[in-house]
C-alpha cells in the first residue's frame, strides 16, 4: 500500500462549547485530488484552518508524509506550515495583494527562498551575483506559471485590476510558487462561469498530473467536484458522514439526506 500524503486522525476543533469538527479522520493521496464537500457550516473551512495553522486544533493529529520524513503539522504555527512543511492554501474570498503587480504577487510567494539568497538583505543591497541569479530564476518560475494560466501579458498590471476569474487562477498559481507538497483550495470555483470552471479543472488536473502535488479541495460546484475528484469526503455538522469515489458519493443515501433532507 502506498503511503498517504496527508493523514488526519481524530481531528477535533471546539470553539467554546461549539464543536466545529468532531473526531474527523481522513487521508489524502499524493497526486490525487481529494474533495471535501458538505452543506454550509459543516466545518470544511475550519478543517483547512487547522491544517494550515490558522487555528490550533483542540485534539487529534495531522501528519504530512514527505519522501523520507513524517511531519506533525500540529507542531507548526501559522506561517511555518507554509514555510517548513510546504502546505499552501487559497482563500474563499480571494486574498491577493491587490495593489501589487501580478508578477510581484508571485515573487512574494517565493519570499523565503529569495530572502536566503539575498543574505538577509545585506548581499542583496550590493547586487551580489548569486542573488541576482536567484532572482532571475524566481522570475522565470513566475513566468512559467503565468504562461500556464495565460496571464503573461498582464504580468505588470496590478493584481486587483484583473477580472475575477483570473484573480482566482492567479491565487492558485501563487500558492504553487511556494512549491508545496499539498495544495489546499477553498472554493476555487466560486463565482466562476462555466467556461472559467472548465479552465480551472484543466489547471487543477495539470497540477495533479504534472506537478505531482496533492490537492485538497473544498467546493460547492458539483460539476467541478464530480469531474476531477479522485476521492470525496462529505462532512455534516463537523462529522464525516461519507467517503468514497465521486460516483459512490453521488448515489449515497446519507449524502442525499444531508443535502436535501429526509422524506417525511
Amino acid at each position, binding site marked *: 500500500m502506498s503511503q498517504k500524503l496527508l493523514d488526519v486522525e481524530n481531528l477535533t476543533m471546539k470553539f467554546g462549547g461549539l464543536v466545529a469538527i468532531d473526531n474527523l479522520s481522513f487521508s489524502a493521496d499524493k497526486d490525487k485530488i481529494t474533495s471535501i464537500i458538505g452543506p454550509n457550516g459543516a466545518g470544511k473551512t475550519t478543517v483547512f484552518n487547522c491544517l*494550515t495553522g490558522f487555528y490550533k486544533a483542540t485534539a487529534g493529529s495531522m501528519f504530512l508524509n514527505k519522501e523520507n520524513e513524517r511531519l506533525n503539522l500540529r507542531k507548526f504555527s501559522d506561517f511555518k506550515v*507554509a514555510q517548513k512543511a510546504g502546505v499552501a492554501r487559497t482563500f474563499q474570498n480571494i486574498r491577493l495583494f491587490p495593489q501589487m503587480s501580478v*508578477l*510581484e504577487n508571485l515573487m512574494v510567494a517565493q*519570499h523565503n527562498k529569495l530572502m536566503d539568497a539575498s543574505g538577509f538583505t545585506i548581499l542583496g543591497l550590493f547586487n551580489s551575483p548569486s542573488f541576482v541569479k536567484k532572482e532571475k530564476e524566481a522570475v522565470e518560475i513566475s513566468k512559467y506559471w503565468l504562461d500556464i494560466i495565460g496571464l503573461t501579458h498582464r504580468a*505588470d498590471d496590478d493584481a486587483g485590476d484583473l477580472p475575477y476569474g483570473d484573480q482566482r487562477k492567479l491565487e492558485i498559481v*501563487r*500558492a504553487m510558487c*511556494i512549491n508545496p507538497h499539498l495544495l489546499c483550495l477553498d472554493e476555487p470555483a466560486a463565482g466562476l462561469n462555466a467556461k472559467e470552471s472548465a479552465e480551472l479543472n484543466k489547471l487543477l488536473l495539470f497540477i495533479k498530473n504534472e506537478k505531482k502535488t496533492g490537492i485538497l479541495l473544498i467546493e460547492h460546484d458539483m460539476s467541478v467536484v464530480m469531474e476531477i475528484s479522485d476521492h470525496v469526503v462529505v462532512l455534516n455538522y463537523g462529522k464525516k458522514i461519507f467517503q468514497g469515489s465521486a460516483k459512490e458519493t453521488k448515489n449515497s443515501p446519507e449524502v442525499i439526506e444531508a443535502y436535501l433532507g429526509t422524506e417525511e
Partner: protein
Amino acid sequence: MEKKFFQTSIKDSLFTGLIALALFGPIVGLRTVAKNEVLEVHPKWFIVLIIVIVCAVGRFLTNLYVYNRDQKTGIQSSIGKSISNFLDTKGYQIALTAIIFSVIFPFLPFTDRYLMDIAIMMLTYIMLGWGLNIVIGLAGLLDLGYVAFYAVGAYSYALFAIHFGWSFWICLPIAGIFAAMFGVLLGFPVLRLRGDYLAIVTLAFGEMIRILLLNWYQLTKGPDGLTGIPRPSFFGLPFKSFPDEGEQTFHTFFGIEYDPMQRIIFLYYLILVLALITNLFTIKIRRLPIGRAWEALREDEIACKSLGVNPRNTKLTAFAIGAMFGGFAGSFFATRQAFISPESFTFIESAIIVAIVVLGGMGSQTGVVLATVFLIGLIEVFRDFESYRMIAFGGAMVLIMIFRPRGILATRKPTITLEKSSSK
C-alpha cells in the same frame, strides 16, 4: 430646473451664514477686555456681520460656479493627473535637476543665512519623511510616535559625544543602532495591532519617550536639556574663528578667511548626503525580497502567512530600519543645534512628519519632497503672521486632500517588471 437650483443655493448659503454666525459670534464677536481689573465685554458685531456675509456669499458663489459644474471631478483629477503624468514621464530628469539644484544651492547669489537654515530644516524633514515612509508607506504601519526615534537618536548622539568625546562619524552609527533598538522595542508589543489601535499605541510610545527624557534628570538633565554638544568638524578640522594655539581649523587649513557660513554650508551638505543615502537605501530595499514582503504585509497579512512569510520579522525590520533613519536625523539635529531638550520632540513633530508622508502620497519618495517643500515652506512664508500659521497649514492639508485624496503622488510603480527582467 435652473430656478430650483437657484433657490436651493440661496437656502444653502443662508444656512451657511447661520453656521458662521453661530461659530464666529462668540469667538470673534464677544471680545473681553480687562479694564481696571474688571473684565468687560466689548461686542464687535460689525466684524461678525462682515464674516457672515463673506461666508454666505462665498458659499453661494461656490454653489453656482463650482458645485454646479458636472465636470467638477473632471477638473480636479485632470490637474492631479497631469502633475503625476509629468512626474512619471520626466521623473528621472526632475530628480536629477532637484539634486543638482540642491548641490549648487548654497552658492547661488540670493542664498543667505536665513534661506540656508530653512533648507537645512526642510532636508531634515525630508529625511524623516523618507525614514517614516518605510514604516507607513511600505509596511503600512501607521506610526504616530516617530519623533521618539528622532529623540533617541539625538540624545544618544549628544550623550556619547559629551561624555566620551567621540566624533560625529562614530556617534552617528551608534545613534542609529540605538534608535533601531528602540524600534524593535516598540515593535514587539504592537505586532498584533493594526490601524487605529497601532496608531494609539505608537502615539503613547512617543509620549513615553518624551516624558522619560523629561524626568530622568541624572542622565538627560530633564527640561534643562543637554548643552555643549560638540559641533561637527570637517574630517577633524573644526569650524572656529579663533583657533587654539597650534590647532588646525577649517579656515587655517585651507588658508581662507573665517566665515560663519562655512559651518552652515557644511551642515547643509551633511544633511543632504544623509537624506540622499536614506532615499537610495529605500529605493533599493523596496526591490529586495524584504521590501516586497513589507508591501505584501500592508496589502494582506493573512495571505502573507499562507505563503510562509514571517510577519513578525518582517514588521520588526520595518520598525527597526525606519527608526534607524530617524535616529540618524536625530543625531544631525543634535549636532546642528548644539542644544537639545525634550521640548523639541513633542507630538506635533510626529504629526508633521506623518502629514508629510500622507500628503505626499504613501510610499512615494518624490511625494515626500513635494509635501515637505509645500508644508514647511508655507509655515515659513507665514512666519510674520504668527497666529495664522497653523490656519494656513491646516488649510493646505484640506486643499491637498480635496484635490488629491490619496496624496500628491499616489501612483505606485512595480518593483520588478517582466519586460525588463526578460529582456536583460
